[in-house]
């Protein structure tokens, strides 16, 4: 009985503590007073917590503008990612078995392409399109569904919708787009949530694309802003941590909202209770 209890609660709790620790120390670090050296022992909570570091952020960098820019990019990019990933995933679902295998191999090859291979050369494409220094280049990863992996995730989820349902809807007069929207998508809400969360994290933290394709300082997103803090006074750990907390918090928030469905014991039941009127 004790062993069972160990396996079910104690071990998971230890693991959970280990994984939460980095975030925890990030928050704790941001609450220390500026200037004092880092503690020499494990400090679970600062002696005199202060939010001074947070107050200084907007003085040093245009925090709110950067955050607003990030929010704008995410608001555009996440829906686009979900759209592209789900449409493509649905397309894969509809392919015949041999065709799908071919498409999968194509995706695998795509996965093989190192990001470094396209960073600089994409600029040329963007320049020809006249979109350098707009937010369109930041939407490029979204148009690629961020990663073929998200497409596979959708294709895999759509595989759970039986053929007979698609055919029934077809006989009811629905076109394929209608079937995708009204039949397939609602049945894979956990996948949509997962893709949305992953896409949010990616776009929110995206550093390299804004660095390379945005020129106006006014259009910068927060990850770029965070870098400006990195070089400041080295005893200003709290400031850096506060910047990191600001960068991380939205992702954590979005994830915490999604986990109710995503990580529940029975994802279907969790969905259902939400889906019900």
């Amino acid at each position, binding site marked *: 009985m004790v062993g069972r209890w160990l396996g079910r609660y104690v071990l998971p709790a230890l693991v959970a503590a280990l994984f939460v620790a980095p975030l925890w120390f990030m928050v704790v670090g941001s609450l220390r007073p500026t200037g004092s050296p880092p503690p020499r022992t494990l400090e679970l909570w600062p002696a005199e917590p202060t939010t001074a570091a947070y107050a200084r952020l907007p003085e040093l960098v245009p925090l709110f503008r950067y955050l607003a820019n990030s929010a704008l990019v995410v608001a555009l990019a996440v829906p686009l990612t979900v759209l592209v990933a789900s449409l493509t995933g649905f397309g894969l679902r509809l392919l015949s078995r041999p065709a799908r295998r071919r498409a999968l191999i194509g995706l695998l090859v795509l996965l093989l392409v190192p990001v470094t291979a396209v*960073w600089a050369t994409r600029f040329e494409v963007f320049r020809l399109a006249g979109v350098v220094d707009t937010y369109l280049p930041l939407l490029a990863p979204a148009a690629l569904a961020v990663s073929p992996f998200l497409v596979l995730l959708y294709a895999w989820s759509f595989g759970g919708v039986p053929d007979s349902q698609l055919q029934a809807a077809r006989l009811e007069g629905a076109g394929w787009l209608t079937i995708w929207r009204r039949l397939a998508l609602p049945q894979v809400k956990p996948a949509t949530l997962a893709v949305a969360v992953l896409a949010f994290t990616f776009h929110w933290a995206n550093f390299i694309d804004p660095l390379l394709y945005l020129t106006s300082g006014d259009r910068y997103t927060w990850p770029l802003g965070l870098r400006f803090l990195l070089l400041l006074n080295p005893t200003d750990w709290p400031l850096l941590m506060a910047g990191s907390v600001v960068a991380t918090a939205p992702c954590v928030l979005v994830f915490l909202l999604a986990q109710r469905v995503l990580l529940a014991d029975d994802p279907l039941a969790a969905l259902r209770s939400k889906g019900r009127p």
Partner: protein
Amino acid sequence: GCTSGDGKADRPGITVVLFGDAEEVAGYRSLVDGFTDANPDMDVTLSPVATQDELMARLTTSFAGGQPPDVFLMNYRRYGQFAGQGAIEPAQSYLDASSAIKESDFSPRALDAFRFDGQKLTCLPQNLSSLVVYYNADLFQAAGVATPAPGWSWDDFLAAGKALTGDGRYGIGVEASIARLAPFVWSNRGELVDDENRPTTLTLRADPAAREAVDWFLDLQLRHRVVPPDAEEQSESSEARFLRGTLGMYLSSRVAVPTLRTITGFTWDVASLPVAPGGVPASILHSDAYCMSAGLPDHRPAWRFIEYAMGASGQQTLAESGRTVPSRLDVAGSPAFLDPAKPPRSSQVFLDAEPHLRATPRTATWARVEKEANKLLEEVFYGRVDREEGLRQLEETVRPLFTPAGK
């Protein structure tokens, strides 16, 4: 072609790419504001990035993509790469024709560093800085050591360092890098490379004077232990240590000043680098310059911005940050820079060092040489490898990098 001003042909617009931390960027922003106030017909897109690495990424991408910025700020240790490719529009002719600024306004040492072919100016340096010694005056007093005097020697320096070390404190804080090592080599009349203009190898071992300086530098750590050892340095940088009041002397350039100005607990000041016994005073130039991208149809708007930035009011704006020494000597000598109300009291030291400033080679591959050499020098400095073997490896590894790739 230049498409950055798309749709606004009536209003010339330029893009300025530069690097700096949050506070520096704020300074540049006010510079740009000053410029647009003075030139309401121009649009300036300020495009800051944090580090020099990021600057390089941004520039390479935009150059390769055919849409380079009009003006960019660049350290002299890296501009050789660009100049060697003809990517920079040489500034000499513009300066000659300018009525707003003239060559004699500026520090010749700084200007020289930006003559890529040795004659014509390629970029216009906005600042100059040198390696100096910041010291904690209270610690000196407590240890009963005399504060550094102009022209002090290596031995004074080391003795002070020893006296200040102990009790969890260290006497000297210095980064293990070529840029920190170089002034000591030069002070000892040694040379860093075999040929200043066409270097093919480092001469840290071959040149006895250089070797002596290198050994002396390494001994600070390896023998005298007046420098924080590996783990200590990793745990807390020398700058942080100095700020906390547990480091006697800290070797850095002018960049450190804004941070050091947050110190409230003790008094600190700045001194020139010590001189080698029988050597000459020397320090190393740190300078960033405004460059114009080659191949743009019209360089006049860019030049107007540079004229403003290099003009008296532009340089003054910059000087007020305290972060740099303006390359305009009139501004550098003015209270805008030497403001006695703000520490360090002895800012004159930076100006006094100017005649002794030297620059590292400006070849296309120097940046790479320095980067790789720094990594290996660190290994030797912290005793992770044997000194002799480490130095040999350093020179061997770096040697092929002097020859430009593919040539």
